[in-house]
């Protein structure tokens, strides 16, 4: 099984986990991306949302499981063929939620370009943006190293 291990900076990443944990509660109650289909009947829609919420919650738990004892002792997290897909999705869900909750006022163009003066941001927004960038880096790492495993699974 293909596996990549990444050494992270504990002092940088550990505070971001609080943000992720806080948002994981929110993601248990609502979809990260709004359901855009307007013509589903109500019962069908409820069934979809319930199933999507369950899937979203399971993905976020897989992401949180990365930050285990090994991470807190060695600073190492491991991605493999089994966790790559749910972690990719969880990162997307949390990034979407970070935008909704903390980053909307930065503007979408600024958010897409990533050109932001971190020192000029208030603390909750700065931490949220750091988390947003960290999760994007996780996604890039997985896509760069495990894309074949994801496409073949």
């Amino acid at each position, binding site marked *: 099984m293909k596996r990549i291990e990444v050494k992270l900076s504990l002092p940088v990443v550990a505070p971001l986990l609080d943000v992720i944990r806080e948002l994981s509660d929110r993601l248990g109650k609502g*979809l*990260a*991306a*709004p*359901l*855009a*289909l*307007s*013509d589903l*009947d109500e*019962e*069908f829609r409820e*069934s*979809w949302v319930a*199933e*999507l919420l369950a*899937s*979203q919650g399971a993905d976020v738990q897989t992401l949180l499981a990365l930050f285990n004892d090994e991470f807190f002792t060695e600073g190492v997290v491991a991605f493999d063929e089994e966790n790559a897909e749910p972690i*990719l*999705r969880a990162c*997307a*869900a949390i*990034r*979407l939620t970070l*935008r909704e909750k903390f980053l909307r006022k930065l503007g*979408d*163009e600024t*958010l*897409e370009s990533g050109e932001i003066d971190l020192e000029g941001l208030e603390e909750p927004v700065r931490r949220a943006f750091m988390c947003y960038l960290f999760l*994007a880096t996780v*996604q*890039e790492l997985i*896509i760069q190293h495990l*894309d074949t495993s*994801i*496409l073949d699974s």
Partner: protein
Amino acid sequence: MPDHQSHTSPAEKNVAELQLDGVWRVVVLNDPVNLMSYVVLVFKKVFGFDDATARKHMMEVHEQGRSVVWVGLREKAEAYAFTLQQWHLTATLEPDETH
């Protein structure tokens, strides 16, 4: 993927079925959050696109705000929309008037 359960009366059902007949488009809408590389991977994974096709659709989403990624029967279009939603891409369905 949940089953589609209808609770309409026979008359209503005929109207509903007529509305759901025909050909539907799966349209992916732009969002400012998901990475281009992520969207390309999702298109390849969900639709089996090759790299060039996936990138073409991703660029359409990015530059035009939307891309029609699949056209076909309603039930399968719904299944694709559901899967895209699992990957946190925003998808809508619209009737394809050209068929």
